[in-house]
């Protein structure tokens, strides 16, 4: 790790330039440590940092180093960072985009939080919100530049972060562009259409850089097909496109759909990044729910491949290597996009290459990641009642009586799921998989009596009832059984944020009360906390000037902790 002078951002940027590329591509294949160069920190998705300066014995001494609040929109003033107000000229704001910006971030209220990865490379932080990207000096959080995209519209629910390839940053926009920025200046290099705005696609995913591929997913709540695409990092040209559902009458999996028209409108959107295995060149990602999500009979009675599945895509060819369906014929919009975690570990006395995933429907899976062979299925909730057990393939079986009802069907979980996008984590020190768990109930009322069903997410009214418990849960990957649960006191409807584990025998996560908490990963006992307001992204850690930092995003503000 290069050490940077702490005095001035100019010097930091200059030194980064002098030393060549901002991101050495080799860094991406290393295990998580000094920097945070991609969505999950490294390709495994484990969110397990090898750093040990902060550990169980000294975590109580963590000190707030700085805070920095970012302001989305076309405003002229850059964020100042703690104590820097007025001390320097405002950071430049670069404006791009093909829309008017009128229906931008502010018009959708919920989009002004950091809910994705903040990259840290070379002493610079790169963070984002829908339509907005920032570079901040990691020493005090002051802004170096701010890029604002004038949007045409689209669902502004969140942005999961930026991708970095050499000196170039990549951002998806809600109105379906991939934007390439100069990481040093924030100036735009190009932007390309990645999906069709007229079909109501929206793009929130963090682009994932693998070799010379920029891997990009999108979202959609109408009945458009889901796909994963790979773009050339230099030109933005399409390299390949993999559809999550069959598109032609002879495509594999078509027999699981009523007809080609149903399959072509079948969804399966990949809106959370997957994980990557450099040995096999497999990008392993969870696919989204089938559509129409609720009035599902128009899709036929089949499994609706490859929706709600874990799929392994060869990054060189864009071809499907294997798949395992974690929620066949979903009827509750319980997508299976949750981050898969790649682990090399012992299984039945033999070392194996595994992939682990806990899905929105309340089930946990261990598979062989080279072949897709099913090894373990577990249910990590006691409330989920939409299923009637597990079949011989290891896949949960839906109970049609719990789809919905005109009089209402009481279903656990509510649509948000037992777990959702907040990233899980794994610690090789404990062999445990950590995941936020929300045991919620809702009534699902059928409102569409037209036998042709509804489109998208329509046709039902879902009214929340209660949550029986919010937990931080640890699962044994060998058995799929829950090793321990830490229950958040009271009956909160919100739960844990995404998670981080470290070689300092620590597990970090935001709790339901607005604290960042360090837990003992062996048993879930809290060791340290600080009340910041609800933690909105998974905690991150990295080295700067020879010391370990903990970076927390809570709403529109970043908090950096370290030991002094």
């Amino acid at each position, binding site marked *: 790790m290069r050490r940077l002078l702490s005095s001035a951002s100019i010097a930091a940027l200059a030194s980064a330039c002098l030393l060549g590329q901002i991101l050495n591509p080799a860094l991406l294949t290393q295990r998580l440590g000094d920097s945070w160069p991609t969505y999950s920190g490294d390709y495994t998705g484990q969110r397990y940092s090898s750093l040990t300066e902060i550990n169980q014995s000294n975590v109580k001494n963590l000190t707030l180093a700085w805070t920095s609040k970012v302001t989305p929109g076309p405003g002229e003033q850059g964020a100042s960072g703690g104590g820097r107000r007025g001390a320097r000229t405002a950071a430049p704001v670069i404006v791009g985009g093909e829309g008017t910006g009128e*229906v931008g971030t502010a*018009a*959708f209220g*919920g989009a002004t*939080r950091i*809910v994705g990865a903040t990259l840290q490379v070379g002493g610079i932080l790169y963070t984002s919100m829908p339509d907005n990207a920032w570079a901040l000096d990691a020493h005090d959080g002051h802004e170096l530049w701010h890029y604002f995209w004038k949007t045409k*519209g689209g*669902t502004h*629910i969140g942005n999961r972060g930026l991708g970095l390839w050499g000196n170039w940053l990549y951002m998806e926009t809600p109105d379906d562009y991939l934007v390439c920025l100069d990481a040093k200046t924030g100036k735009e290099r190009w932007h390309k259409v990645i999906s069709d*705005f007229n*079909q*109501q696609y*929206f793009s*929130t995913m963090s682009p994932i850089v693998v070799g010379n591929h920029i891997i990009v997913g999108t979202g959609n709540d*109408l009945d*458009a097909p889901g796909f994963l695409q790979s773009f050339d990092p230099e030109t933005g040209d399409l390299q390949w496109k993999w559809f999550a559902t069959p598109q032609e009458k002879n495509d594999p999996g078509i027999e699981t759909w009523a007809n080609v028209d149903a399959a072509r409108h079948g969804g399966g959107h990949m809106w959370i990044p997957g994980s990557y295995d450099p040995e096999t060149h497999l990008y392993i990602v969870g696919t989204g729910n089938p559509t129409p999500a609720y009035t*599902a*009979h128009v899709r036929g009675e089949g499994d609706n491949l490859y929706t709600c599945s874990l799929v392994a895509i060869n990054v060189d060819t864009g071809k499907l290597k294997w798949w395992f369906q974690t929620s066949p014929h979903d009827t509750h919009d319980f997508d299976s996009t949750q981050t898969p975690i790649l682990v090399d570990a012992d299984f039945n006395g033999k070392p194996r290459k595994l992939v682990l995933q806990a899905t929105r429907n309340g089930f946990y899976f261990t598979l062989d990641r080279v072949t897709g062979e099913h090894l373990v299925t577990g249910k990590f909730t006691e409330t989920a009642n939409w299923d009637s057990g597990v079949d011989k393939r290891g896949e949960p079986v839906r109970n049609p009586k719990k789809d919905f009802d*005109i*009089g*209402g*069907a*009481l279903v*656990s979980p509510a649509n*948000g*799921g037992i777990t959702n*996008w907040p990233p899980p984590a794994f610690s090789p020190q404990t062999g445990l998989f950590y995941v936020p768990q929300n045991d*919620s109930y809702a*009534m699902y*009322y*059928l409102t569409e*009596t*037209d*036998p*042709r069903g509804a*489109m998208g*997410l*329509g*046709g039902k*009214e*879902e*009214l*929340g*009832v*209660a*949550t029986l418990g919010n937990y931080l849960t640890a699962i044994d990957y060998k058995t799929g059984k829950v090793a321990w649960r830490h229950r*958040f*006191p*009271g*009956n909160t409807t919100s*739960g844990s944020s995404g998670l981080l584990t470290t070689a300092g025998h620590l597990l970090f996560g935001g709790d339901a*009360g*607005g*604290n960042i908490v360090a837990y003992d990963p062996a048993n879930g006992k809290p060791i340290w906390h600080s*009340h910041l*307001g*609800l933690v*909105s992204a998974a905690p991150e850690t990295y080295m700067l000037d020879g010391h370990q930092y903990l970076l927390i995003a*809570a*709403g529109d503000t970043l908090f950096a902790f370290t030991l002094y």
Partner: protein
Amino acid sequence: MRLTNSTYLGSIAAVVLLASFATAQDPKQSPPQKPPSTNTGNTPVSPAGAPATTQAAQPPNTGRVRRSAYPEHPPADPAAIARGKAVFGVNCAFCHGSDARGGEGGPNLIRSELVLNDRNGELIGEVVHNGRVDKGMPKFNLPDATISDIAAYVHSFKVGGYDESRHQPPSILVGDAKTGQADFEKTCAGCHSLTGDLKGFGAKFSDPKILQQTWLMPGGSGRGFPGQQVAEVHVPPTTVTVTLPDGQKVEGQLGRIDDFLVTLTDSEGNERSFRRDGDTPRVEIHDALQPHRELLTKYTDKEIHDLTAFLETVK
């Protein structure tokens, strides 16, 4: 699938009617679109930033109409829409449905990629003129002006899964009141009385759905969403007893609690907060609704429907 065929027959009848009727009338329009932030597959996030689920399944009631995330087609000339509707009814509705959502063999046009990318008939016209013979779509020899009218009609429909104009729920009262009464005696009467706390309960609600949500979890997250009636029911507050190291007990209404802090409001209205270090001080939560929570794991849907049917009669 628990769907009846009556509506389907109705739509066929509508096709026939349209074909002969051909009266100019705007297609059904929708009320302003809901905010797009819910149920996108991405968990909605509460304004304070935490991932939320059941609560945030409802959009926040901001009291203002939000912009659509996806621009609708600019409104076309009503006369063009009317002409288009007439032509559509005669030529297209049998296969594609009178509302363009699909009919006898023809696909749903509202979600069609080609239709979504069409502006004024330039793409639709190509298909209409050339047909899609391999898929059973014949050619139609229609003038460009008529194609433009058809496009205006098809584009006048709301595009989206959240179309509220289609939310026309039949009554949710599907249960048996008599069985519900027996269930009430068995499950509820230990705590509740029809002549006491639940006297006239059914009369408090004009919407049985809200009645059902309310008895399932009084004060629960099914209340308070836009456009829904909220009934005034007494919900006993959750209370908390904090036992300090010296044995002193402080009681009050629970404000918030996490692993490190508990906040309560005592009987004199003072808000008091106590630092928590593990089990010190001792904290006991008294949630009057705990039996309601535990029952969620036990009810069958039929029991819920029967109980609602019965409570509806308690006027």
